[in-house]
């Protein structure tokens, strides 16, 4: 009656030109809880999205219960009893808890059976109590906290006739007692014959709940281990995997002048009490897991996000509250999502390069095309942007070249502080090296760089200091020789002694 097993064979997936999964083989036995671990960007979430039908694999086969599922639609997969509980709850904010839970309930078209709200409410209340939720099934979901919303998502999965449950980092926003109750429910469910795929970042939880663990790294399966035969240390070693290279850049010319001071910054729900300073010529790395509040920190500093407390000052002690003030103070932000925030995709490369520099190339509000052409040509050469012509549209460029454009448009100006989010995501190896070189050169001329990165190697090689964030807080600072993957990962998953597992 339940899936005997799920067999994924040679799954490969590309997003644009970046390959996120490479020949992944994954087998789920009936009645097991199978954990998937790996660093950010290792491909965990992509793999389970493929299994649940949200995205389709470019290559490879998926068999469930012996039948081929490779080309099944989301609806077919969802209605066959597969539920994916994602980091972000898939809920309908305008509906009540009860309505959210029932909305995809299947009433057989053959039977004349009417949907019974009273019965559904009683069942939902029972499940909510089992998970220890204290809200009424009639509360509007809009008014619930993220943790409560996740519970609602869980309940709506549990109400279905489940054949496979996938939970993607369910514990990130839960308190320890909530995690306990969740685990009890998962175990009970598993005992009743539902296989579970569990993605988690807190390794001690992974070890507690799972029967087997698969380690993914850079889109490939490194190992699949029986949980009782492995340990936290071994998993971290497998996740990190590579030899840690020596840092290639020298950091001797570090100046002492403070360029940017962040004091007690709070952005409700994202950032709590973050303080740090950046010196001139310094590259400050910010590490942490997805959802730790790193991008939000950059956006809060740049004045894009509401802050309820705290202060950002530049070298002259000027307060920076809005994006306009930030730009005037010589701060630039290169966002993670180039396609939406960094680049005008339907505009030419030269226009993208000019847009921040219009002051230089225009007079009395009128554009001077000759000057624009000279300037953009200069930038294209200086930053080695590979294009056929300057009138090419932004969307036609590769990820690497897009990133160079979004950097180049800022770096023509007198930028003192560069805030950069995931500088090499979706960027090919060649461009990545060039971008790293650019960042280093810029730093050596006195520019400060605050770099958020999920790429461990990038963080370690480029940064003078690394701050590691978790749940919107800075968990620790690593300097010089102390910067290594293991230390970062430990801080990021809250493993270091003295830190607590939960938010509260």
């Amino acid at each position, binding site marked *: 009656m339940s899936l005997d097993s799920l067999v994924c064979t040679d799954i490969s997936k590309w997003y644009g030109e970046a390959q996120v999964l490479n020949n992944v083989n994954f087998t789920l036995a009936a009645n097991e809880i199978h954990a998937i671990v790996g660093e950010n960007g290792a491909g965990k979430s992509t793999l389970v999205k493929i299994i649940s039908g*949200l995205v389709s694999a470019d290559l490879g086969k998926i068999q469930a219960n012996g039948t081929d599922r490779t080309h099944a639609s*989301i*609806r077919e*997969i*969802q*209605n066959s009893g597969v539920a*994916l509980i994602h980091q972000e709850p*898939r*809920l*309908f*904010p*305008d*509906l*009540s808890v*009860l*309505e959210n839970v*029932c*909305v*995809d*309930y299947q*009433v057989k078209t053959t039977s004349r059976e009417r*949907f019974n*709200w009273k019965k559904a*409410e009683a069942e939902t*209340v029972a499940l*909510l*109590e089992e998970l*220890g939720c*204290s*809200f*009424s*099934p*009639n*509360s*509007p979901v*809009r*008014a*619930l906290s993220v943790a409560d919303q996740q519970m609602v998502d869980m309940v*709506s999965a549990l109400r279905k006739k489940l054949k496979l449950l996938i939970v993607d980092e369910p514990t990130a926003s839960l308190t320890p007692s909530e995690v306990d109750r969740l685990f009890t429910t998962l175990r009970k469910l598993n005992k009743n014959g539902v296989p579970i795929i569990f993605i988690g970042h807190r390794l001690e939880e992974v070890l507690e709940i799972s029967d087997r663990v698969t380690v993914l790294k850079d889109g490939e399966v490194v190992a699949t281990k029986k949980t009782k035969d492995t340990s936290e240390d071994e998993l971290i070693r497998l996740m990190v995997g590579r030899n840690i290279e020596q840092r290639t850049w020298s950091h001797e010319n570090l100046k002492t002048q403070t360029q940017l001071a962040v004091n007690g910054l709070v952005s409700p729900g994202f950032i709590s009490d973050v303080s740090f300073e950046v010196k001139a010529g310094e590259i400050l790395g910010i590490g942490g897991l997805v959802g730790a509040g790193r991008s939000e920190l950059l956006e809060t500093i740049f004045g894009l996000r509401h802050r309820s407390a705290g202060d950002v000052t530049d070298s002259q002690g000027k307060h920076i509250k809005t994006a306009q003030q930030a730009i005037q103070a010589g701060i630039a932000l290169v966002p993670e999502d180039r396609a939406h925030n960094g680049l005008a995709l339907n505009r030419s490369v030269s226009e993208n390069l000019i847009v921040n520099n219009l002051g230089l190339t225009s007079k009395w509000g009128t554009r001077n095309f000759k000057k624009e052409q000279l300037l953009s040509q200069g930038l294209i050469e200086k930053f080695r942007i590979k294009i056929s012509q300057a009138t090419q549209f932004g969307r036609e460029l590769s990820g690497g070249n897009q990133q160079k454009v979004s950097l180049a448009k800022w770096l023509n100006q007198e930028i003192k502080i560069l805030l950069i989010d995931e500088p090499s995501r979706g960027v090919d190896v060649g461009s990545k090296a060039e971008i790293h070189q650019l960042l280093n050169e810029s730093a050596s001329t006195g520019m400060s760089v605050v770099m958020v990165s999920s790429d461990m190697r990038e963080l370690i090689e480029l940064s003078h200091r690394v701050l590691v964030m978790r749940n919107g807080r800075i968990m620790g600072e690593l300097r010089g020789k102390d910067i290594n993957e293991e230390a970062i990962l430990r801080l990021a998953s809250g493993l270091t002694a003295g830190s607590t597992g939960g938010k509260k």
Partner: protein
Amino acid sequence: MKLALRSNPNHAITNIFKKREFGIFIFVLVLFLTFGALQPRFFRSDNLWAILSSVGILMIVGAGQTLVIVTRNIDLSVGSTLGLSAMAVGMIARSHPTFPTIGLLLISLVVGGFCGLINGLLVSYGKIPSIIATLGTLAVFRGAIFVLSNNVQIDPNDVPKKIIDLGVTSPIWVPWLLIFAFLAISGVSLLSRRTLAGKRIYAIGSNPEGAISRGLAFNRITITVFVILGALAGLGGVMYMARYATINPADVGRGLEFDVISAVVIGGTNIFGGSGSALGTALGCLLIGILSNGLTVVGVSPFYKTCATGILILAAVTLDNLVRKKQDQNFLQEIRKQRVSK
């Protein structure tokens, strides 16, 4: 820990003050009493019937438009759909005066439903934003009226008396027009409050990506709401014929979309989808009717009427935003209290 098992607010009017429609209801009441105080003639029963009759068509079409707006769509072509149905039915009635009324009503539903189907297909499978798609069909359907009628209008003496009677009489003391309006509003209300299908309509407007990932039939639901609205607009066509007896190809239903969308928005339906109710829309229709009638009765120049409707929309939406914010705060506080007491 025991959860308080409240009776479901979807099933009973647990607390009228917590209802979304409360703000607009107060608005209607105040306006109603004000006009009455200024001019007692306003309260006379023939005037009250006139107000109700004047918004009957608006309610029929508004009930459907509520569902469409709840799904994050909009239908601008309702006036042309209503006109096309009125013209088709009118021409049949002119050439076959003995054609049964029930048959004419069914034809109007089919014609309107077909127009709605075209809109729904363009929006769902055609992936055209509804505001553009229905802007196009607004012109196409209007053009079809001219082609169909050869630009010849239906005159009052072409309309059988039994059709005219729909607007004034029925076996019970309420005219058919208002019975249909009541059925449309309560039908949509029932659909959205009591049925899973109705909840799915709200779900796809509340979180489209979530709806797809939960495996809801996104396109089918979208098409369905457009067909429901089209059919109701078609029914509105017969009601138009009953009320006005003249069907001019250029005038029939022209500008109806403005009044309908106004009524829906005044009634508290979120223009960005996800929330709203047919009851609110009915109140919105009443508000428009009372305002229009009241301004005339107390002797305000008709030139001010359009302006007043516009101001009313703005006031209603502002009020609605405040009410919604307040309700959210109340819910949050309630949940926090539960936490503390735990």
